């Protein structure tokens, strides 16, 4: 008997109460915010959103309208060159083409010059992966193991530098702009550096380490479609040569869509062009190298000014206006429905 008695409390200790804790978490009584879709919140959301979208949209449209842009399809205008380039045997024949155009108004502020390509599938999966970022970082890599195929090595085993389809297909037209000022022709000064992202220029692309660039690329060969090796891309500027050439970097940043424009040059704002491009007659002198007619593509040259929202971009502004209008309209519709059906709600009383 005695044993039994002494056992009982021990047992109770050994099995502490199995009663669950009375904590808010375990009892699902956590304090919580219970948002409600009430008429007030919903309507204010709609009207505020509507107002916001409309104002943003109008701002965007206004600023987009202030952008001056001129776009010239030069693959059509230089049809002779286009035809010549259709045949790849003519790759070493130079083809020059001049295009005149007139600016009716001044293009004030910074003016940017782009080349545009149409129907060029830079976003194709096999194209996008066809590069070796390690190689472009200046590292010793076996390009055979990259996704560069078939632009990895020549038959004799010499690796291509840079390898891959992207690099191989680099845009290689040269475009110069001339201003016909009082019957004299002035070349518009263009800046070819400072056009790419700082991270690209300084982090993502590095030349191989060596005492000079040509020796750094010793043992490699230019991609088959290139006219000159990578270390001769800009012989004048060491900081713009090899892999860190701005034109190359910009080309390597593949576009999301088949129709795109890449920044080619910026107008250097000096002398006549301190405020931008004055109105007048201009001529593009184009060295036509990049064949597009084979894949039914088109080439453009574009001049444009900039505002805070970028260049000419009517879509965003219009979309905002439409969205704002829709939101406001929905707000009114909801109000109408709510008021109209309010009477019916009394069915609860019956």
């Amino acid at each position, binding site marked *: 008997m005695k044993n039994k008695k002494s056992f009982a409390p021990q047992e109770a200790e050994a099995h502490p109460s199995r*009663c669950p804790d009375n904590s808010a978490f375990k009892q699902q009584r956590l304090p919580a915010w219970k948002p409600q879709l009430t008429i007030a919140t919903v309507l204010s959301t709609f009207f505020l959103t509507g107002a916001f979208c409309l104002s943003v949209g109008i701002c965007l449209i206004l600023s987009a309208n202030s952008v001056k842009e001129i776009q010239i399809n030069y693959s059509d205008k230089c049809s002779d060159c286009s035809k010549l380039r259709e045949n790849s045997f003519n790759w070493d024949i130079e083809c020059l083409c001049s295009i005149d155009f007139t600016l009716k108004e001044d293009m004030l502020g910074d003016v940017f010059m782009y080349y545009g390509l149409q129907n060029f599938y830079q976003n194709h999966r096999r194209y996008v992966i066809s590069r070796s970022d390690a190689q472009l970082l200046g590292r010793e890599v076996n390009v055979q193991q990259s996704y560069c195929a078939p632009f990895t090595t020549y038959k004799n085993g010499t690796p291509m530098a840079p390898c891959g389809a992207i690099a191989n297909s680099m845009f290689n037209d040269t475009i110069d702009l001339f201003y016909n000022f009082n019957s004299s022709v002035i070349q518009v000064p263009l800046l070819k550096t400072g056009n790419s992202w700082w991270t690209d220029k300084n982090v993502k692309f590095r030349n191989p380490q060596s005492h000079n660039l040509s020796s750094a690329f010793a043992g490699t060969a230019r991609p088959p479609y290139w006219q000159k090796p990578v270390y001769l891309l800009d012989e004048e500027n060491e900081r713009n040569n090899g892999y860190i050439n701005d034109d190359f970097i910009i080309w390597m940043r593949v576009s999301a869509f088949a129709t795109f424009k890449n920044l080619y040059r910026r107008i250097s704002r000096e002398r006549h062009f301190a405020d931008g491009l004055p109105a007048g007659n201009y001529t593009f002198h184009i060295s036509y190298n990049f064949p597009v007619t084979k894949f039914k593509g088109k080439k453009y040259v574009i001049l444009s000014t900039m505002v805070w929202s970028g260049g000419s971009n009517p879509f965003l502004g219009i979309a905002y206006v439409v969205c704002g209008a829709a939101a406001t309209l929905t707000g009114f519709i909801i109000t109408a429905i709510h008021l109209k059906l309010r009477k019916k709600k009394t069915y609860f009383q019956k």
Partner: protein
Amino acid sequence: MTVPREMPEKWPRVRGPGGAEEERRVRANAREYNEKFQYASNCIKTSKYNIVTFLPVNLFEQFQEVANTYFLFLLILQLIPQISSLSWFTTIVPLVLVLTITAVKDATDDYFRHKSDNQVNNRQSQVLISGVLRQEQWMNVRVGDIIKLENNQFVAADLLLLSSSEPHGLCYIETAELDGETNMKVRQAIPVTSELGDTSKLALFDGEVICEPPNNKLDKFGGTLYWKENKYPLSNQNMLLRGCVLRNTEWCFGLVIFAGPDTKLMQNSGRTKFKRTSIDRLMNTLVLWIFGFLVCMGVILAIGNAIWEHEVGVCFQIYLPWDEGVHSAFFSGFLSFWSYIIILNTVVPISLYVSVEVIRLGHSYFINWDKKMYCAKRRTPAEARTTTLNEELGQVEYIFSDKTGTLTQNIMVFSKCSVNGHSYGDVQDMLGHKAELGERPEPVDFSFNPLADPRFQFWDPSLLEAVKLGDPHVHEFFRLLSLCHTVMSEEKSEGELFYKAQSPDEGALVTAARNFGFVFRSRTPKTITVHELGRAITYQLLAILDFNNIRKRMSVIVRSPEGKIRLYCKGADTILLERLHPTNQDLTNVTTDHLNEYAGEGLRTLVLAYKDLEESYYEDWSERLHRASGAPEAREDRLARLYDEVEHDMMLLGATAIEDKLQQGVPETIAILTLANIKIWVLTGDKQETAVNIGYSCKMLTDDMTEVFVVTGHTVLEVREELRKAREKMMDASRSMGNGFSYQEKLSSTKLTSVLEAIAGEYALVINGHSLAHALEADMEVEFLETACACKAVICCRVTPLQKAQVVELVKKYKKAVTLAIGDGANDVSMIKTAHIGVGISGQEGIQAVLASDYSFSQFKFLQRLLLVHGRWSYLRMCKFLCYFFYKNFAFTMVHFWFGFFCGFSAQTVYDQYFITLYNIVYTSLPVLAMGVFDQDVPEQRSMEYPKLYEPGQLNLLFNKREFFICIAQGIYTSVLMFFIPYGVFADATRDDGAQLADYQSFAVTVATSLVIVVSVQIGLDTGFWTAINHFFIWGSLAAYFAILFAMHSDGLFQMFPNQFRFVGNAQNTLAQPTVWLTIALTTVVCVMPVVAFRFLKLDLKPELSDTVRYTQLEGFGELIMSGKNMRLSSLALSGFAARPSASWIETLRKKKGGEGSTACSPSGAPDKTLKV
């Protein structure tokens, strides 16, 4: 050992052609002989794996899951370089994670099964081998062995009782483990073996038993013992079944007939099936559909690719030659098909399955932690033993409940009686049977009686006074109670009496008599000794006319010391009142009134009567009785006729009323569950009267009911006829109701089903076990089901464990409804296992039911909380979770599809591959998990107050194919905007510094960022209950997205792995652009605002009940609160209320039930009111 010379030719083959056993031959003490039949040994195995087979078997099982195989297949695809559009790690990491988690869980479960198997298999028993008793483990016991059992031991296998310590080879067993009945039962050895009392004689026993093959019928056994050239018929009365416990018997010997898996216990425990919820099945279907959809998208894009390569790609070959081995556009298209299958696979993310498991686990913990389901008395919290069924708790339509111990406490109490037209037992304050709640006077003091049972309580002192005053009727009344029974008494010490009753009712009656001074002291086969108010009187017991289901009465004939012969009879009122002497008419009327009154209170009543017998008449009768019992044929009938003859013209003494106390809160729980449109069927092994009584007391059956049909037919035809009549009555009634519809017209045009669904009145069906056996036959089961389902309450009595399971199976099969079985005894195990959800009450009767159950707790009343609160929330959360999950993955994945049209169908992904890997695991998993675990639409007390809130779950309204398509449509809509708005912007835009904006990487970051923001806003809209955890996860996920984005695009990672982290510098360059943010903002607004508008309009125009309840408390709409007053727990108001605001429920209900008439679909039996929408 001698072989019997004459072997019967009746059973030519032991094994049938299919290897199925046709009969069983067992020879005692002959292991070699028995071995050739290869009977199962006594070793049981419920586990699934062992150490060696675990990995292959478990993996095999896991890969039987559609989803797992699908991901394995994807993984293999990704290893093929030509089509690998994504890195292999995007699939393998989640897949391995899922497989491991599941395997660990399975392993733990199986470990515990192993443990319990071992424990059972290693129990010791004494086996007679070569004349010596040896200790053997249970698993080593063979068919044909003779084993010795001692008191309180479990029976190791199904035994033929040979002999026992008690006279006449009697022994007592308790069958609680087997059928849940706690009273003792008597088994008797056949006379010829009952003399084999010691081991030397038994060792020479070489009888051969030929009997039926193993089966699951607990109450039947047929076989013959051949011994010494004689044959002896064997019946269930001679058998001890595995799972029983030997009681009050010092020892006994038995011959093992069935062992291990062949025993009736094991045969009765239905197969352990892996239970799946309907959402699981729906999910699997949907996954298949999505897979089909995926293939379609793949085909479209592959065709696109072939055309593109043919038209454009060919020309573009100068810059982008085709891969080696690809020579035609067609083949390229073929490869791109597989590539697209890989990148679009995220429409069914593997994390779906893991997340679902996590959410269910969370819900299970909430059940375990619920303090309101903790029973302080038994110190048992509720337990979710299966963690995969929670949301189905929110969809239950049928509850199958055991009675004894589940609805009741299984404690019988003598509460009232009527003696000679005077009713005793009423409590002064008229609180009725709600004993413990009301204030009561002091109970009657029984201290005058030293033999009184101190636990017995009675509240009406006038009865004791009547005893003390010597009222002869009262004395006779209690004398009857102390004599007319089959209770055994045990007197451990002087004056300390213990009664062992076959049924708790008898125990209660004898105990009552004991306290009122008529103490049943002891019995021998020929005498009964009773202490009548202190005087010991021994009555000579002349005959016991035992109880059976047809007679519904029992009688004893005793000779008093004075020599008078008297018959005492007690039995069901319906039977007994007919057999009274005509002079009793007045008394009968009064007593009948009392009986009705008692029955109305839910008490179990018995009528008591007596009859004096003439000495000469008795002699004659007894002579005839003796002859009849010796008769070879029609013995039962002849006995019954004789009993019938003597039990006639009796004098009424009175009536008793016994209360099997209901558990606390049972009527309330049943009322609430009924209001929640859950149908409750009681399946009980008890006799019909008891079951019906309990039905009344727990308000399943009410006096308001139009009719209670009782089906007790013994033959197929009778049962069919009874069911038909019931149906006809119901139809007649609804026709005559004349609520604007002519049912005759519909009778001809629609099926039986719909008509029966239209029944307007409230009916109940009571069906007996033997009738049920016929009703469950293949050709009648539908008829039975339709009849039963038209009734509001169904009670099946005298059912076997297997029948319970069959009933559940029947409803499962034809009703497509979620079933829940609740029980406490081992006899409920198969039902618990069969039902979609099994609930075990951890009560008096062992833990078999709990072990087999999915959920367990100790009080029936917790069921309402389990279903209405936990189940409802689980269902709601799971549905919201699934909707959102499919939405977010479609929104995420379909962007690739649209992009395909702009990238030459080349299977280029829109996003960075790390974003694809992490999107489902990191960026969007936790907020939706938090919603899936914590969300609450209405507070818990509301779901109890408005049981109708449960209905959407039953009708499966929150997640079904329609909802799925809505989610998918929303996802696709989002993906369209997600792609085309940035496309529109980027197509023509430049950065503010003049550089190009539309590069691929900036586009990828923009789309990814707007996607993360949009789905976060969406989860914010979906979350209705923002706890701190939700806040943390939602804001945290957004923060994590940006943190990881910047980390992935950082210089450091790029320097280490330049080919893997090519997006270097992208985040800071892109996200610094105002245009990009304006794009993201626009996308978010356009994606979210329509959703807000639709949600609000739905809420405003067609609010669900839950919305209304939610708004009522928060906003205090005056009119809602006013109507809320009479809404609570009032069935009419509720059904009307529920029907009005959401006609869609009614629609769904209509479709589901297939009814065409508008009155055919009232959810709660108030058709004319509900449908005036």
